[in-house]
């Protein structure tokens, strides 16, 4: 590299000043956010992620839809479980009603 160009670039960079208008307390706000992030990053239990998710409509909708689908699945599963249990009870009642020996055992035990 040309040492003369290098010297000129250094001078230019030293003289350059950004002209953007930053909001009031921009710098302190950035440092505050960095500090908050580092403080909360390790824990899922603070539910910060939930606050962030609910700010996004698609994800909020997904939460509600997931709750609905899970409830539907749970209800169908429970209905089937109860049905099979009731059917097994009904079968036992029938066998007791036709089998005198089972009846004798039931009353003697």
């Amino acid at each position, binding site marked *: 590299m040309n040492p003369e160009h290098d010297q000129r670039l250094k001078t230019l960079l030293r003289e350059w000043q950004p002209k953007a208008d930053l909001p009031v307390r921009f710098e302190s706000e950035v440092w505050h956010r960095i500090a908050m992030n580092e403080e909360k990053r390790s824990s899922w239990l603070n539910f910060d992620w*939930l606050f962030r998710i609910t700010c996004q409509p698609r994800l909020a909708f997904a939460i509600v839809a997931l709750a*609905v689908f899970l409830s539907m699945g749970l209800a169908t599963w429970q209905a089937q479980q109860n049905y099979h249990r*009731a059917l097994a009870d*009904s079968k*036992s009642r029938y066998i007791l009603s*036709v089998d005198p020996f*089972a*009846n*004798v055992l*039931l009353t003697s035990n």
Partner: protein
Amino acid sequence: MKRLTVILALAVLLGLGAYFVSYGIAQSMFCQMPDASDSSSWLRQEFHLSDAQYAQIKKLEADYHPHCVEMCAQIKQSRLALKNLILANGTMTPEIETALQKDGAVQQEWRQDMLRHFYEISQAMPPAEGKRYLQIMEEQTLEPENMSSEMSAPH
């Protein structure tokens, strides 16, 4: 915070609503509960019986029931007599032998009557279902290992 509360409340409310609606639909569509007061309701559901078949089976059950009660009393009496004789004697006696023979005869009669009833019921069903019914009833009532497990099983 308010937004989060609203979304979570909505999820809980809609979830609960979906649960109850789905449970109701599942029960009425494909999980209809058998009638707890009717001991034969299991047959109707398990073997997909028509109203006419079910009515015929109900009639057969009604005819069989008094006999079943009578058999139940005979088995009880025979068992009690045998038990009393066994406990009253310290060795094998002719009375115990007679009681054992009587108990065996009662058991044989009970098995024959029950099997006759199972055949009648199976004939009132569609052939394939009748065969399945016989298979289930044979396993549940006539196989010795199931009879002994019934003895120990809490009802």
